[in-house]
C-alpha cells in the first residue's frame, strides 16, 4: 500500500484518510480488532488497512515508508535498526516501539496424539534441533521417549517472513540449526490444517491461533521445571508459569509520519487507550500488559502536537 499519501485534512474535528498497517500475522487478529473498533466507534471516515505479511516482511515495507505501523511478534533486530538509520530514522528519537501484549508460543499437536501431550522444555527444543537424533533429521517419536510410537515426526512452523519463526529460532533454539525436515509455511491457516489432519504433526505458533482452533488441535503442556503448564491467559506473562515460552508482541510507529498524519496519531493513541490493546488482548488470545505501560505511551503520544 501507499502509506504516505492521502493525508487527512487538519481543519475540523473529523479525521479522514488512511492508515496502513502490516507485519506480524500473529498480531493481525488483535490489530484488526482494534482497527475495526476504531473505525466503528471513533473515526468512521478513517480507513485503517491491516495486512499480515509477517514481522520481517512488515519491516521491509516499514523501513522505506510503505507502511505507517509495523506489527511484530518479536523485537526489531539490530540490522533493521541500521536500515532505518540509513533512511534517516533514528530508532530512539523517531521510531516508537509500542508493546502491545504478551503472547504464548504454543506447541500444537493433533487431537489424536495421545502420547505427547506433555513434554519438557528440553524435549521440545531437542526435537527441533538438527542432527540431535538423526543425521537426516527424520526423527521418530520413539527417539524422544522410547515408549512413544516409532513413527516419524512431521515438523511444521511459520516461514522466515514471520517473527514467530525468528523468536523460535533465536530465543528458543538459541540460533542452533533447525531440523531440515521441518516444513515452513506462509499462512497460519495452512499450519492449522496440516496439524489437524496429521497424527504425527507438530507445529508452533502464537496462542491466538490455538484458541481459535481448540476443536481441531491440542496444545502441548510444557514442563519448565515445575510441572507441565498449559498455555492460557492466566499462565502467559512474565513471572507466570508459562513465562518460559512467553514473548512480547509489538507495533512500531514512525513519529515523523504521525506528526504529519493526524489520523495515524489518533489511531496510535487509540491502540494504547483503555479501549485499545489492553481491552481486546484477551479476546484474541493475548495476555494484557500492565496498564501503566500503555498509559505511559499515551502520554508520550499526547505530547505530540
Amino acid at each position, binding site marked *: 500500500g501507499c502509506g504516505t499519501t492521502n493525508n487527512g485534512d487538519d481543519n475540523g474535528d473529523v479525521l479522514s484518510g488512511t492508515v496502513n498497517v502490516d507485519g506480524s500475522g500473529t498480531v493481525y487478529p488483535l490489530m484488526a480488532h482494534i482497527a475495526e473498533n476504531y473505525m466503528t466507534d471513533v473515526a468512521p471516515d478513517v480507513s485503517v488497512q491491516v495486512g499480515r*505479511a*509477517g514481522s*520481517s*516482511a512488515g519491516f*521491509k*515495507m516499514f*523501513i*522505506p515508508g*510503505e507502511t505507517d505501523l509495523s506489527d511484530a511478534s518479536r523485537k526489531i533486530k539490530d540490522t533493521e535498526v541500521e536500515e532505518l538509520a540509513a533512511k534517516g530514522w533514528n530508532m530512539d528519537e523517531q521510531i516508537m516501539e509500542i508493546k502491545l501484549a504478551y503472547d504464548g508460543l504454543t506447541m500444537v499437536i493433533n487431537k489424536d496424539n495421545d502420547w505427547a501431550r506433555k513434554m519438557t522444555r528440553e524435549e521440545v527444543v531437542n526435537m527441533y534441533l538438527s542432527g540431535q537424533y538423526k543425521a537426516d533429521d527424520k526423527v521418530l517419536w520413539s527417539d524422544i521417549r522410547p515408549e512413544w510410537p516409532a513413527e516419524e515426526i512431521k515438523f511444521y512452523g511459520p*516461514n*522466515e*517472513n514471520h517473527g514467530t519463526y525468528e523468536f523460535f529460532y533465536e530465543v528458543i533454539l538459541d540460533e542452533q540449526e533447525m531440523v531440515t525436515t521441518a*516444513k*515452513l*509455511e*506462509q*499462512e497460519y491457516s*495452512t499450519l492449522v*490444517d*496440516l496439524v*489437524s*489432519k*496429521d497424527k504425527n504433526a507438530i507445529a508452533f505458533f502464537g496462542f491466538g491461533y490455538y484458541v481459535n482452533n481448540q476443536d481441531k488441535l491440542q496444545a502441548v503442556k510444557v514442563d519448565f521445571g515445575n510441572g507441565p503448564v498449559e498455555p492460557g491467559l492466566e499462565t502467559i506473562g512474565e513471572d507466570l508459569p508459562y513465562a518460559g515460552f512467553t514473548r512480547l508482541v509489538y507495533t512500531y510507529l514512525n513519529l515523523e509520519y504521525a506528526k504529519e498524519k493526524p489520523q495515524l496519531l489518533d489511531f496510535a493513541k487509540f491502540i494504547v487507550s483503555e479501549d485499545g490493546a489492553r481491552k481486546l488482548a484477551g479476546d484474541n488470545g493475548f495476555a494484557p500488559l500492565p496498564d501503566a505501560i500503555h498509559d505511559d505511551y499515551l502520554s508520550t503520544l499526547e505530547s505530540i502536537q
Partner: protein
Amino acid sequence: MNNVKVREIIQNNATRKNHRLDRVMPTFFLVMALLSVATTIGIVLTLVTDASKFFASVPLREIFSTKLAPLSAQPSYGILPLLMGTAMTTLVAILVAVPIGMAAAVYLSQFASPKLRKVLKPVLEVLAGIPTIVYGFFAYSFVTPLLMNLIPSLEPKNALSPGIVMGIMIIPMVASLSEDAMNAVPEIMREGAYGLGSTKLEVATKVVIPSAISGILASIVLAVSRAVGETMIVTIASGSTKNFTFDITKSMQTMTAYIVEFTSGDAASGTTGYYSLYAVGLILFLFTMVVNLIAQYISKKLREEY
C-alpha cells in the same frame, strides 16, 4: 419538388467535405493497436530487467538446485522444486482433462444428436466460466477432504487435489477445441467409413480422431499451458512447501503459487527475493509463449490438411 435544392446541398457538401477524420482514423486505430501490443513489450521488459538482476546475483548452479529457501538466513534459490510442483499438478490435470475432455468431444461430435449437443455444449462451457478462486475453494473445502477419506496418507495440502480440480476446469477447453477439430473433418470422410459398414465408434477412432489429430494435439497443448499458468487453485490447495518430490500426496509449490506467496508476504522491492519473482515469471511467460506458438503451428498445419 425540392429535388434541385437537395441535389445542390448534397453535391456542395460532397465537394466541400474534406474527410479529415477519414484520414486521421487509420493512424488513431494503428496507435491503439500498437498500445495493445505494448502490453507484451511491457511484460517482456519488466520481466527481463528484474529477472536479469536475479540471474546476475545468483549462481546458475544454485538456480538448478533442489533447495528453495528464499527467506532463510542463508537463502537458496533452487528452482527445481517449483518446476516439480508445476509439473506434477499439471500432469494430474492433464490426466484428468484429456481422457474426459476427449470422451466428451467424441460423444458430442459422434454420438449426441444435434439437439442434445446444442444443450450440452453451453452447460459444459459453464465449467470454463467459473472463476478459479471458486475452484480453489472447492478443491480445498470439498475435494481434499473427500480424497483424504480415500487416501489416508494424503496430506491436507497436496498436488493431487488441485491437479484434479484444475483438470476439471480445463475439460471444457479440451472438449470444445477437440470437438471443433473433429467437426472440421469433412463429412465425406465419415461417409466413406460408414459406407464400409463401420460402427460409430470405429468411425470416431479409425477415421475422425486420426484425421483431427493435430487439432486435438493443439487443444491438449493449450490445456497444458492453461494448467501451468493456473494460480489460485494451487495457491489455496497445494500449500507452499518447497518440496522436490514425485509424491503427489505431498504439499508442493508451483511457480504461480510462489509468486502469490511471495508478493503477499514480502514484496519489498530491491531484494533478491523480489527479483526472484520476476525470474519465475519470466520462465512462466516464456513457457506459455512457446507452448502457444507450438499450438498455433500445429493447428495451422491442420488447416492445410484438407
